[in-house]
């Protein structure tokens, strides 16, 4: 019976500690559609710092949290390039940001970002969220995670959050291009038809 008592005590402690050790800090929710998004100054693969304020002529932005290492990001790379090519001249350039901590994911180091941008001929800035400070403010949880912002008098207002289209793994099965639909609507001064979507992605490592 003595053993049982000791065990009881230990079991108590175990259960208590199982919870205690895994207590996580409150998660910040991030932006919702209609919120004003923060600007930033992050280092691009060409070594220069980039801010949204550097684009006086832009009508808005396609901010995409993406990385080298996630297969879903890679599966979307060509679509991201196509988006930039199509909409940069219409006032909606793509700004890609790698939110991952390279200490946890060496494949997403700044050096590897440079290599990736060069080998894929990225037509858009590919920025490094050094210190992982920007993505939590946006509320990005995974790569790829896309935010369409519209420049207004109030600042850059979030108009769409989600995936580029409705088939992240298989481009040939795409039937709804959410980001394009959102930008087209904004350019035509119409309501964005779908403002929030979901897709599988790699959780951001920080």
């Amino acid at each position, binding site marked *: 019976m003595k053993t*049982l008592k000791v*065990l*009881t005590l*230990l*079991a*108590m*402690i*175990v*259960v*208590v*500690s*199982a*919870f*205690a*050790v*895994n*207590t*996580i800090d*409150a998660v910040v929710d991030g932006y919702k559609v209609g919120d004003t998004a923060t600007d930033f100054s992050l280092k691009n693969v060409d070594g220069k710092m980039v801010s949204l304020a550097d684009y006086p002529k832009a009508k808005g932005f396609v901010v995409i949290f993406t990385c080298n290492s*996630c*297969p879903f990001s890679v*599966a979307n790379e060509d679509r991201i390039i196509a988006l930039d090519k199509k909409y940069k001249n219409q006032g909606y350039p793509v700004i890609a940001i790698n939110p991952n901590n390279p200490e946890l*994911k060496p494949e997403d180091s700044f050096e590897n970002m440079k290599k990736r941008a060069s080998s894929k001929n990225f037509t858009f800035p590919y920025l490094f969220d050094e210190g992982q400070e920007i993505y939590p403010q946006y509320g990005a*949880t*995974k790569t790829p995670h896309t935010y369409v912002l519209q420049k207004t008098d109030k600042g850059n207002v979030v108009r769409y959050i*989600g*995936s580029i289209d*409705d*088939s*992240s*793994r*298989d481009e040939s*099965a795409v039937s*709804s291009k*959410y980001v394009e639909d959102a930008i087209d609507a904004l350019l035509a001064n119409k309501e964005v038809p779908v403002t929030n*979507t*979901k*897709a*599988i*992605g*790699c*959780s*951001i*490592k920080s």
Partner: protein
Amino acid sequence: MNVLGYYKIECKNLNSFVLKFVNLICVKRDLNYICPMKKLMFILTVFFAFSCGDDTKKDEALNVQAESSSIEIVDFEGYEKMISEDADKTYVVNFWATWCKPCIQELPAFEKLNEAYSDKNVEVILVSLDFKTQVDSKLKPFIKKKNIASRVVLMDDSKENEWLPKVSQSWSGAIPATVIKKGSKQIFYEQSFSYEELEEALKNI
């Protein structure tokens, strides 16, 4: 064998008592408990893991999914059917992929749970979100290499924006993610699990 069986029951009873105790001294916030004296607790946890963990292990009676020549492929409809077949069974469904590092790290916990609870009407299902084109080149070799014994199915449903919210409204789409379901009750977790956390989660259903 009898001694082991008896010991297992004792452990289980203690745990439910302990859970009540936790509720008394800890503050519950969402799904997490905040408790004092974390460090001391941690050390004792490790100690206890050695003293009780080994005994609760089941005998070596694994049905290793040997040389599986095909992987079950489901769309969302198939997934729903799969986790609704038996209303008395507890389904522990883990969404993962071979390329997802935190998913791979937690797989042993799910494997251990599947083994330890196989006689308690609990089934672990590992729902892979690998690319369909990589089933032969990545998924099957991985299952073989790691001797995965739990049931593995490939989710092949491209309309993620339709089915993700049906799995859970709160799912952002990041993996790993886990659903624990019994009958009409379901709890969703977008997080990584240790074995101990997984066992606790199982008790909450």
